[in-house]
């Protein structure tokens, strides 16, 4: 039997290119695959020159192909556009219109990269996939359970987006960059003569040009010829006083200060959006503080659902500094009550609450 085959998910960026280079250098049998997720020719009104966040542009495919050519590995482009639109783009839009703040990267990891891509890899004969995520995976030799740890480079750690991975997915996944810092990865890529070693990091949400998700949602509906349901409504203070009108709940996220269009003595922040009434509630910074939250759709990684309350650190958005908390899992393990030691600012429905013990990722769920 020949050496097992590894499929490297290559985006054309420096990280996944370095993964291919590292595995190749170790003498592994690899193929490169680029997932075509979104057709950049759609929504042409959003295409301005120099826009950031252009996933799956032809340039990226050419870059990935050039890297594969330098490494001398077989390379393929696979088309997952239908899947991506159904599992990532449409839920992303639905969440915003429901007054929540979604994380498309997590949906993409759960339903595309570590689901459809794994299936495609297996179908073509690759038992294992490798990606450029900054996270570490190791199997606990005593229990056989796969555990996840933060990447060594804390500033690039991507475990916040990976909390949904199941044991059977992790067992077939390699994150070769988990032990490196980003500068080390760039240096390795340059050493290995990888053409994209100096390419800029990708930014924001890959299919939304310039991070303007409200414009994306409106353009998407125009393309589909659908009139989105009305999401305009009132801006209301925490005391129930009507302060103004807004043009749609999808323009607002909890903690936001800019773009309210209301002049008042003290700074005002979005405290909550009410999808039923389409109202946006605003208040003072103090009103944003929350001592607890409920997470649903919880997935456990490094541990099983704990039978009694445990002490952890919880991140409530990617750039949040994990805060001390006690968590209590419901009997099915799918719902978790989080009680913070200190109130946290801007607990945002639709974002994830991810539970850590130091750098170990215990699990996580969706903030209600």
């Amino acid at each position, binding site marked *: 039997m020949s050496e097992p085959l590894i499929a490297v998910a290559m985006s054309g960026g420096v990280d996944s290119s370095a993964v291919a280079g590292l595995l190749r250098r170790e003498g592994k049998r690899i193929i490169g695959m680029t997932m*075509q997720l979104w057709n950049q020719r759609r929504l042409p009104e959003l295409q301005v020159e120099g826009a950031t966040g252009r996933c799956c542009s032809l340039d990226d*495919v050419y870059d990935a192909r050039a890297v594969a050519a330098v490494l001398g590995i077989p390379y393929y482009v696979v088309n997952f556009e239908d899947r991506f639109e159904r599992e990532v783009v449409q839920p992303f839009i639905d969440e915003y219109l429901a007054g929540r703040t979604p994380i498309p990267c997590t949906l993409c990891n759960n339903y595309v990269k570590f689901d459809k891509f794994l299936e495609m890899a297996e*179908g073509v004969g690759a038992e294992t996939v490798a990606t450029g995520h900054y996270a570490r995976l190791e199997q606990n030799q005593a229990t056989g359970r796969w555990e996840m740890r933060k990447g060594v480079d804390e500033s690039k750690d991507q475990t916040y987006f990976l909390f949904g991975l199941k044991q059977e997915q992790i067992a077939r996944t390699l994150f070769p960059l988990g032990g490196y810092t980003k500068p080390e990865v760039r240096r390795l890529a340059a050493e290995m003569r990888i053409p994209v070693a100096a390419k800029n990091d990708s930014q924001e949400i890959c299919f939304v040009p310039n991070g303007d998700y409200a414009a994306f949602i409106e353009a998407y509906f125009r393309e589909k010829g659908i009139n989105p349901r009305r999401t305009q409504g009132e801006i209301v203070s925490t005391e129930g006083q009507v302060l103004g009108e807004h043009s749609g709940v999808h323009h607002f996220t909890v903690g936001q200060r800019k773009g309210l269009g209301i002049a008042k003595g003290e700074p005002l922040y979005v405290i909550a959006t009410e999808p039923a009434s389409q109202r946006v509630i605003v208040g003072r910074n103090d009103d944003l503080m929350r001592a607890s939250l409920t997470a649903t759709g919880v997935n456990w990684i490094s541990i099983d659902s704990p039978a009694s309350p445990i002490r952890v650190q919880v991140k409530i958005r990617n750039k949040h500094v994990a805060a001390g908390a006690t968590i209590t899992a419901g009997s099915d393990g799918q719902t978790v009550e989080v009680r913070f030691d200190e109130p946290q600012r801007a607990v945002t429905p639709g974002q994830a609450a991810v539970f850590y013990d130091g750098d170990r990722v215990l699990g996580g769920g969706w903030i209600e």
Partner: protein
Amino acid sequence: MAHYFDHNATTPVSAEVLEAFVPMLSGSFGNASSIHAFGQEARQKMEAARREVAELLGCDPKEIVFTSGGTEADNLAIFGVLRREGLAGRHIITTAIEHPAVLNTCIELEREGAAVSILRVGSDGVVDPDDVRRTLRPETVLISVMHANNETGAIQPLTEIASLAREAGALFHSDGVQAAGRLPAKVRDLGVDLYSISGHKLYAPKGMGALYVRDGVKLHPMLFGGRHERERRAGTENAPGAVALGAACAWINHNVHEEGARLDGLRDRLEQGIQQRVPHVRVNSASAPRTPNTTNIEFEGIEGEALVIALDLAGFAVSTGAACSSGAVQPSHVLTAMGRSAAEAKATIRFSLGRSNDAAQVDALIDAVRASVSRLRKLSPTYSHV
């Protein structure tokens, strides 16, 4: 050792073509339009090649215009007819299964003011001449219908369409890129006025093609420059390419029937082998007359792009429909024009045979297809016969 089953994409240069081609690069290097002996030597070899191409197509050598390939031949034929006079009010008829070299040329002309009718085809991938008849208008100046389809191999009813064109006073162009070399392609029998061929589909190098232009048909040139190719195609003649194309045609002129019969047998062996050993498959255009080397098979419940990759990694080169420029696979416009759903089109693989293939390779391919399809179907959420 990988085996090549993608001859409709391109073919390797054959030994006899290489033997004719290489001496042209430095020995007989002259400019075929030069006065001196160097030029005359290149000219003589190029004109001998033109006679071989003319023999392949059963026409007079002066009716052959050398081009840079099939795409240029198609562009020259279509733009060349339409741009002789103003485009306004001119009408073209073509089909939904044409190669992009024809379809996108017609779409460009539509943008520039011509009227274009794109005919559907039957579920067997063949255009109905009655549809052509119904679509003809007094202002129809050109009909363009391919001789054989690149994906299914389905042969189109050119002679019937040719008589309709003649009655209507329209010119008739056919893209013969996938037919020439695989089928007899005598232009007088077919009744066409214009016929495109491509070198690299018939064991000559890439970057070489030809257009048959019936004597008396005037074309507006695409390229402006010197008075080459009887003022139909400016640019220093690619004498090495022409000589290579001539050598390829000479081989075909001697072998087309024998090689066609051999490929037909291998193709049937492949098709029957797959049908016997892999359940729930459908051969597209099975009821239509087809080129002898092509079979297009739908494997229910799988994704063709996964099967192509799996077979590539197992050492067999095959193809889905036409690959788009990024390399990602869109559902084939040919199969969707035949009424297949996007899922059915994406479950389809094209096998195209050629000179290098033999029965042992075909049998090994059948084994690899069976193994890969069975693995993919185990993983498939849509395959319902487990």
